[in-house]
């Protein structure tokens, strides 16, 4: 049969010749290989000081966006929670009161918006589901913590900083 790749090698069990049995030449060759690695640049990234560049479509921590006037985009429609395969998102909607127009873009907003970061699988379906372009997974890696309850991120951690600050 015609070989698919040219990587096939005929295995032979012929006895080792004297140099191969002497073992020392092989050791010297091995020492050469390790020495060549000795002078190579280390591949280590010293993490907290240096950070690896994320790829452009990296999905990290969520952020709830504001519009160009600094109003929260989220209207608490619940499509993100519905689309979430890990059921990590929960929210409580509230009606915008008169005088809060500069805070919320729509008449309905999320009074409570929580994402359980231990449940989240960072699939990005919430950002696809969102009709208001309010949620994006454009943050950093979610930091570690000690307690499970501390991984439930509320609006204090998720909403973008206001524009005027």
């Amino acid at each position, binding site marked *: 049969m015609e070989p698919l790749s040219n990587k096939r090698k005929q295995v032979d069990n012929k006895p080792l010749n004297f140099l191969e049995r002497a073992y020392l030449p092989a*050791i010297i060759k091995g020492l050469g290989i390790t020495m060549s690695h000795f002078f190579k640049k280390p591949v280590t990234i010293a993490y907290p000081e240096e950070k690896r560049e994320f790829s452009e479509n990296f999905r990290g921590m969520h952020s709830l966006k504001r519009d160009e006037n600094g109003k929260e985009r989220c209207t608490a429609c619940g499509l993100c929670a519905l689309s979430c395969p890990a059921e990590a998102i929960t929210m409580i909607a509230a009606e915008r009161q008169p005088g809060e127009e500069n805070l919320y873009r729509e008449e309905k907003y999320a009074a409570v918006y929580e994402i359980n970061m231990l449940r989240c699988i960072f699939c990005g379906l919430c950002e696809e589901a969102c009709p208001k372009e309010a949620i994006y997974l454009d943050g950093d890696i979610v930091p570690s913590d000690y307690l499970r309850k501390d991984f439930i991120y509320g609006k204090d951690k998720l909403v973008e900083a206001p524009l005027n600050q």
Partner: protein
Amino acid sequence: MELADIIVKFILVVIIFAISLVIAMYSTYAERKLAAFFQDRIGPNRAGPWGILQPLADGGKMFLKEEIIPTNASGFLFIVGPSLAILTACIGSAVIPWGQKLVIGAHVIDLQVADINVGILYIFGVVSLGVYGVMIGGWASNNKYSLLGAIRAASQNISYEISMGLSIIALLLVTGTLSLREIAEQQHSWHWNIIYQPVGFILFLICAFAETNRSPFDLPECETELVGGYHTEYSSMKLGFYLFAEYINMFISSAVMVTLYWGAYNYPFMDWMAANAGPNIAVILGVILMFLKIFLFIFFFMWVRWTIPRFRYDQLMDLGWKTLIPWAIANIVVTGIVITLINR
């Protein structure tokens, strides 16, 4: 012996003791650092600049760890084991000549603790005592892994001592003396014994790897097969002593190899240096060069460790008994014939 001589000897002993401990300490650091470099990593770099305080941190950790003596272990022997290991490791340096004699005014300072005329035999005695530390520790732990590790260590050391001794005999035929001081003096300037005994040196080197339980002969403590080998049950500083003893042994066997084969403190143009720069400066340069050679050997020990995988046990025994001993004997015969032909 005058009081001044005794004081000088005492100071020398303390200095050598301190140097071997510091070198052993920083060997652990060098090992980790070199391992990292050989594997394209950085290695410890958090404790102090470039991580140079890492050995102190490790030592502090060892001291602060909980001391555990298993219920069924033999209490006394359990403590004797690591003590013996570190004791035998430390006393080996007594007969190694670190340099020529320093002359300060009317005083002549001998840079060797004890110039005994059976120096090589002393080294061998100490090296073969080292196996007791391992054996007693493994036996006293009352644990089958420890015992297996200890038995492996004992049989390995005994097997390789034979070919080590035989490879030395060929060297003794060339030098005609057992005193390490005289052997060192005979290798004046560039007349190093490695030129006359290359095969003997390779045999000695391989045996030195086996005697210090270094990779590729680190079967006594191969963690993949025997959990931790003979020091499975050890914790805290008693474990630290075992690990430390290995590094001191490495330093001492490097020193022995340098003394026997690589010209000890001798270097080419040493007479010229003594004539032009003053004898004491030449002596000190010799000491520095001796330590440089020792460091090169320690580097080589580590280089080999991160290159070659461990031997299988039967291969280890095959190499010891069926390869090294015949080669050592052949080396003796050839050396003897050549010496006889030259002296006729």
